[in-house]
């Protein structure tokens, strides 16, 4: 079973995401902030990371940097309300796979998650 880590500070949203994605057949882990996420990431590897950008303690950008350094192959999807273009650009420059703006459609999210995991598991063409 593929493992997904969700980093989101609104418990209602993360719970809903967990519900939806576990129905889709993934094993879902939740971290309410960047710091907890880092701790979880030390213990295990994930097949996909879904993160907000506006997070307490460790910002989304810092977290993405961390993940890209430690697990370069793990795809990241950003899920955020952020309208600050420079932050969004920063995220893309760091190589995130996808960007979903809130409000989002859960069905669309589930499709994009599937796609990202699939393309990450393909051998890289050089």
């Amino acid at each position, binding site marked *: 079973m593929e493992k997904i880590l969700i980093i989101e500070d609104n418990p209602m949203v993360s719970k809903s995401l967990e519900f939806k994605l576990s129905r889709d057949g993934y094993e879902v882990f939740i971290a309410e902030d960047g710091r907890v996420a880092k701790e979880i990431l030390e213990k295990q590897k994930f097949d996909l990371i879904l993160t907000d950008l506006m997070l307490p*303690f460790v910002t989304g950008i810092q977290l993405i940097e961390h993940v890209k350094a430690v697990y370069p192959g793990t795809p990241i999807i950003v899920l955020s309300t952020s309208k600050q273009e420079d932050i969004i650009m920063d995220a893309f420059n760091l190589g995130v796979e996808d960007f979903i703006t809130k409000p989002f459609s859960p069905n669309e999210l589930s499709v994009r998650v599937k796609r990202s995991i699939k393309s990450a598991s393909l051998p890289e063409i050089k």
Partner: protein
Amino acid sequence: MNIYQIAEIASWLFLFYGIIISLGYSFAAIFSFLEIRDYKRKHNFQAEFTLLQSSSLPSISVLAPAYNEEANVVENVRSLLTLNYPSCEIVILNDGSKDGTLQQLIETFDLEEKDFKYYQFIPTQKVRAVYRSRNKAYKNLKIIDKENGGKADALNTGINLCDHEITCCIDVDCILESDALMKLVKPFLNNTKKVIASGGIIRVANSCIIEDGRIIDVKLPDTFLARAQIIEYFRAFLMGRMAWSRLDGLLLISGAFGMFDKETVIKAGGYNTDTVGEDMELLVRMRRKMREEKISYNVGFVPDPLCWTEVPQKWHILHRQRNRWTRGTAETLWIHRKMLFNPKYKVLGMLSTPYWFFFEWLAPLIEFLGILYVIYLFIFSDLNPVVYLIFFAVVYSFAILFSITALFFEEFSFQQYKKPKYIIKLIGTILIEPLVYHPFIMWASVKGNWDLYKGKKNWGTMQRTGLGNPQKKK
């Protein structure tokens, strides 16, 4: 007249004063309660963060004076740079520090000197240089290096040299919530009248857990001294300024965190460098000026906890701080004595200034006289000890009632101290505070008045010692 008659007259006088004070405090409590209730209702819903990115918000210049802050300045500036607001510049005013404050800033932020040309709207000490960063990430940062002139002079320099129309004056080491500017600027925008200033509530940061310049966990300090000040701040802000803001009679916006309309500040003449109470004096002068020019205006007040500051943990430092506050109050009242009981100034003249005169300035002196009088009676009369006991009981019970009311308001509104055991501890502090802490504060005020009386002639030298709040050194 025999001793008993004198005793009787004095007793009645003290009682009369006591009743006035009690009435004043009771009214303050009622007005605060109304204000807090409104505030709670207002914030029951509504999300305002969506506005954060709007480009229509006015630009703000944040002015932070620094004097011999070598140890913390870099960290403090970093935390200022993370403030969440679409358009603001951070202006650090190095007030002729004798340590490496400037050097630290230059090295950390890769500063370079810039040409500058400016006008002294408000006369100040000489500006030596203006620095900006070569690094684009710090493009909002401006450092002004000037000759030493004290906090008021440093802020005036900032007002002369800053770019934007709204200035926010802060202590460099206070800890701001990340949306503090946003919340403080709201009164400026959401008003049909001209807003000349807005201020907020100051909270005690001691023992709180701070990370990256943000409060992440509010804890109750272990020392009695800090806890007593928390109670005092509750009284001052939740009971005092809350009520004054409802009456539109606010006279003081704390120097630690206040926002001003630059043009009005300049028109009023800027901060007064001849007083140690420059924050209070400025607002009084601005209000007076507006009133005299018959321009209708508003002063905003934001009750959210936006600014946290470290309070003195040592008695002698606290003594120095309170001594200074007393002098500031006395000087401000003296400078603006014409407003006292002057109906022309409406609430300001008939309520605010008399309040400051009788309650803030005169109260410690009367109290001191009262104690002297009791000692006198004790020695020269054979009054029944029950009399002392009863007088003491009434004063003590009122003191704790007042503090408990303030605590109740905190509990009713913000509830920053989440753990139940904190509440028990605070109630304990309230019971001891009138016996230990209060007499000390009273003594510091009396001493402040005495110093003011003695020191009038050698003024300048007293203040040009620099602006650092010595108690904040770690």
